[in-house]
């Protein structure tokens, strides 16, 4: 009853849409999987975690790290940053290869005990999220030389960026730690690095 030509044109249209869509999806997928090139190597540093353990540049090797600079008494962006970090920490609970690092920019106030309490308040119950402290000079040096952040007006003027560091200790990308859109992109980058170092989980 229905003309053959109608059916044929319908099939042609659907094939055309399907092929174009496949092309777009493939392109988009490839572009999402693409992780940014190495920006620079994280220089040598030496800090102590909220559990009293030493943490240095070698602690970054063979792990994917997300690092930010915060201070526990911060009224401004830090709560949002820590809340976003906490969400990621929770979401990647099955991935011990991914570690979270928050460096205090107010070491005078943020003693090991204060950082420990802050970690507890953020629900940290394993060693995937570390809160680091060192003397102010070392913190400024890491912030400026290591990650090219401004550090004249620390603690208040710290960066709100999350830094993605790969398994070789190289900085790969910066993300706005207070912005949901940026965090979503960070998530896709984490996934694609994790897929690369481990074929399947």
């Amino acid at each position: 009853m229905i003309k053959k030509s109608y059916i044929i044109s319908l099939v042609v249209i659907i094939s055309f849409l399907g092929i174009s869509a496949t092309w777009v999806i493939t392109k988009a997928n490839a572009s999402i999987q693409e992780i940014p090139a190495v920006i620079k190597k994280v220089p040598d540093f030496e800090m102590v975690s909220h559990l009293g353990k030493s943490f240095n540049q070698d602690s970054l090797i063979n792990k994917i790290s997300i690092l930010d600079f915060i201070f526990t008494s911060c009224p401004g962006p830090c709560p949002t940053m820590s809340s976003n970090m906490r969400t990621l920490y929770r979401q990647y609970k099955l991935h011990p290869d991914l570690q979270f690092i928050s460096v205090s920019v107010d070491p005078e106030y943020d003693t090991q005990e204060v950082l420990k309490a802050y970690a507890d308040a953020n629900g940290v119950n394993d060693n995937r999220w570390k809160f680091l402290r060192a003397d102010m000079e070392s913190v400024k040096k890491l912030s400026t030389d290591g990650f090219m952040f401004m550090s004249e007006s620390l603690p208040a003027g710290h960066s709100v960026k999350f830094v993605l560091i790969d398994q070789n200790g190289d900085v790969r990308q910066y993300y706005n730690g207070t912005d949901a859109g940026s965090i979503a992109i960070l998530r896709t980058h984490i996934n694609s690095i994790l897929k690369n170092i481990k074929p399947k989980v």
Partner: protein
Amino acid sequence: MKRYFQFSVLSMVFTYLLIFVGGLVRVSGAGMGCPDWPKCFGRWIPPTSLSQLPDYIDPEKFNLVLAWVEYLNRLFGALVGLIILITFVLGYLHFKSSKKVLFSISGAFFLTLLEGWVGAKLVDTVLDPITITIHLLLALIIIGLIIYSSIQAYFAIVGNFEKDSKYHPHAKNVILGILFCLFIEIIIGTEIRGGLDMSRKDNPLIEGIILLKMLGPFKYIHTILGFSLLGLTLYLRKIIYDNKFKSSTFMVNSVNFIMVLIFTQILLGEALVFFEVKPLMQLFHMWFSSLLIGLSVSTYTYWRISLEP
């Protein structure tokens, strides 16, 4: 009047294409390809390199492919909006007497404006799942209104093409039942899709099929309702083919097309469950459901016109 009909058909074709492109944006993950609206990275033509980004947008958000996919969707959306606007104006010029044509195309036009605004909200809310569902449902209502107005205009132009038809007394309720179930089915479908996205976030790197198993009873309701729709359609087909009544070729073709599509949808849906959730299949599963809405609205309109003198 004929010009109006041509434009309303054009509106229909382009709206369907736009629904497809919108779905493509969704499955290719390009929804946030442009982090601002209506401009893309502060520009009317999306940037082609990082150096063109304005200071106030974080550079990590820039992905050339995703930005262009999203922006082409917006440009195409603007084009479709323009076509619907022209149709709306032509409707006012030529169909002042036909309230059915005029009201439906006016509704379609104003909902299209609203749809653009919801699209902007999607970017604001970083793809809030409920907003995504509203964005899709509005598109389906718009396409339904356009199709209704096209067929009513056709009726006004050529006269009652359904005057010889006589439909079974159950036809109306069965058609409305199909339409209702379709809408519920689509809402559940978007819930499944949204739930999948949420659990994927919480369980990165886990295969889609395992995530789907974690979703629970929703997907069973979706399947059961799918088969109920098939049952309703088979019944509709039976009463349409009933010798005691008389159906137009339009009606017969539409109902057969609905039946083929629902079969295809069930196969596609089950394929999505049993194989890996493939973006292309997801896209067609969504798009075919929009075709089903359009066809059901058509059958309703044919039935409605058969009552006219």
